[in-house]
């Protein structure tokens, strides 16, 4: 059987510590064209604490999913280091061992299950790869089916097309848990589900997190859902982290103008708070040729000339809350520099 993964550094050591993670995808500009790259993820730093749920939000194309795939090493990062519980990945921790500790649930519940394998076979595949005998792996698969709320005797021998979207996503969650990981990356895992099913699966995820002592990285574009499940939230814009902090603080007092705009774009049921004007105009700039300086300055209501030339770095604006904005950096040259802290 798969043994439990031991904790090494104690509860205060970050489970994941990511530094300078980078991935540029080449785009061919024809045979004689200039070599160009899409800066999908461009120097991302963050940590994931043991037992927390870290939400990652941002517009489409901001690099959320690429970050997830980089963490799993489904695509190779161009640069950056990932330290797992004090152990750098590569030398001391093989990819195979990392993947035992970190699993992922994908958005498309149908495409992420092999249509030719039964549910039981799909879940048992991972443990079998790691040397669990067939019978034991099946036993584990059936046990996990029960844990995600699907009766094993009814579902074990079914094929993915015979299940509903919600049921399939439960199977995907069971498959991710089959290797007894410590971290589960949920890449838009509930986004494609009906609202009622989404709520059920979210509650299942919360229960499983408690029962198995998991840590989640929860990627979503749905801010309500992120607020519901997350302890901390990371906001991405054009391949960079613009703000990271505790969810409640972020919602009541967003520091970065982009975070503020994102939160303002959430539809509200309160008629007095309805907005008619879009808080953010236009599309994000092309990641092939991102704007110089602060990448958000082209859409930012507080932008000043300095924003187009100086690139802000992620710095603590409050305890446990970091922002990459010149308005929050003292002596940055921005007219509001330093004033934002007092305003809050």
């Amino acid at each position, binding site marked *: 059987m798969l043994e439990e993964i031991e904790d090494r550094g104690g509860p205060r050591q970050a489970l994941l510590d990511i530094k300078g993670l980078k991935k540029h995808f080449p785009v061919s500009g024809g045979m004689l064209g200039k070599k160009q790259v899409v800066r999908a993820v461009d120097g991302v730093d963050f940590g994931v604490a043991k037992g927390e749920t870290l939400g990652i939000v941002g517009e489409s194309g901001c690099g959320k999913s690429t970050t997830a795939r980089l963490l*799993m090493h489904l695509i190779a990062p161009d640069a950056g280091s990932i330290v797992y519980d004090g152990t750098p990945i590569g030398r001391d921790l093989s990819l195979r061992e990392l993947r035992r500790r970190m699993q992922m649930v994908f958005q498309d519940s149908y495409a992420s299950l092999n249509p030719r394998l039964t549910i039981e076979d799909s879940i048992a595949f991972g443990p079998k790869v790691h040397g669990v005998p067939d019978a034991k792996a099946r036993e584990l698969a059936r046990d996990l089916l029960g844990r995600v709320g699907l009766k094993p005797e009814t579902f074990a*021998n079914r094929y993915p097309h015979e299940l509903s979207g919600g049921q399939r996503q439960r199977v995907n969650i069971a498959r991710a848990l089959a290797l007894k990981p410590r971290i589960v990356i949920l890449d838009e895992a509930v986004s494609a589900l009906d609202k009622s099913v989404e709520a059920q699966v979210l509650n299942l995820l919360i229960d499983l997190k408690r029962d198995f002592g998991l840590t989640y990285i929860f990627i979503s574009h749905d801010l309500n859902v992120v607020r519901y499940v997350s302890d901390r939230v990371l906001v991405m814009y054009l391949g960079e982290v613009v703000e990271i902090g505790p969810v409640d603080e972020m919602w009541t007092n967003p520091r970065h103008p982009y975070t503020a705009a994102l939160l303002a774009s959430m539809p509200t049921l309160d008629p007095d708070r309805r907005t008619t004007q879009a808080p953010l105009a236009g599309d994000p700039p092309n990641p092939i040729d991102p704007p110089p300086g602060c990448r958000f300055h082209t859409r930012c209501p507080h932008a000043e000339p300095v924003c187009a030339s100086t690139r802000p770095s992620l710095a603590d604006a409050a305890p446990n809350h970091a922002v990459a904005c010149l308005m929050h950096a003292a002596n940055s040259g921005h007219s509001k520099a330093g004033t934002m802290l007092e305003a809050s």
Partner: protein
Amino acid sequence: MAIATEPLREIAIVEKRRGYWGTVGRRLVRDPVSMICAGILLLIFLSAIFAPWLGLADPFRGSMITRLRPFGTEGHPLGTDELGRDMLSRLIYGGRLSLLIGILPVFNAFVIGTILGVIAGYNGGWANSAIMRTIDVFYAFPSVLLAIAISGALGAGVLNSIVSLTIVFIPPIARVAESVTTSVRNLDFVDAARASGASALTIMRVHVMGNVLGPIFVYATSLISVSMILAAGLSFLGLGTRPPQPEWGLMLNTLRTAIYVDPWLAALPGVMIFAVSIGFNLLSDGLRSAMDIRN
């Protein structure tokens, strides 16, 4: 009192564990077209294998006075050919070589082409370029010309024509295999399998093969008839089978001269090639839809 509120689906029949191929087999048996084709093919195969024990006339003994007799002649139910040899006997004996020369090259090419195509499609990058560009070199020649060139270089004979036809069929099968694999490898379940730490070989075996074999197989069976015709062409040039060996392609060629005398007789070997190839085609089509368990 507790009332059973469990919905109906909860007491759905607990199906016996059957496995994927068991399910496919059961679905195939239920398809009448596939079963008819399988029956016809089985008949042709068995009669070819057991030809010497069927009490047929000698396929080599001709008679100049009984040349090109029509159907229903006494002692020759399907008539006689241009040298007076019994057609029924020659058609059944001819199946031995024709089936061998039609199926074996395609089967060999199916195995080799699938392996090459799946490796190229799954790995992408330079492995893909190396394999597919090499294959394109063979693709550049017309298939007949390539078969003649290889056969000519290796020398005449049935074995050599099987080798040359195998080489002719590898490129198209590898191409189909590569394109199907490329579309499967981008699906999330392959990523999920990689994320579970499985090796490339395990992923190809468990997750890719099952999803690509169907379309490749259907395409390969369509090549069986082409293989028989190409083999006939080689025989015509003296590179494959030699007269008086009965072989459908060769018979089609030699009976060509009799087409104005008795067109029905001349068409008989063609009917056999047609029956075998359409049989394989429909059977593989049935197999493909049986493998597509979503329906």
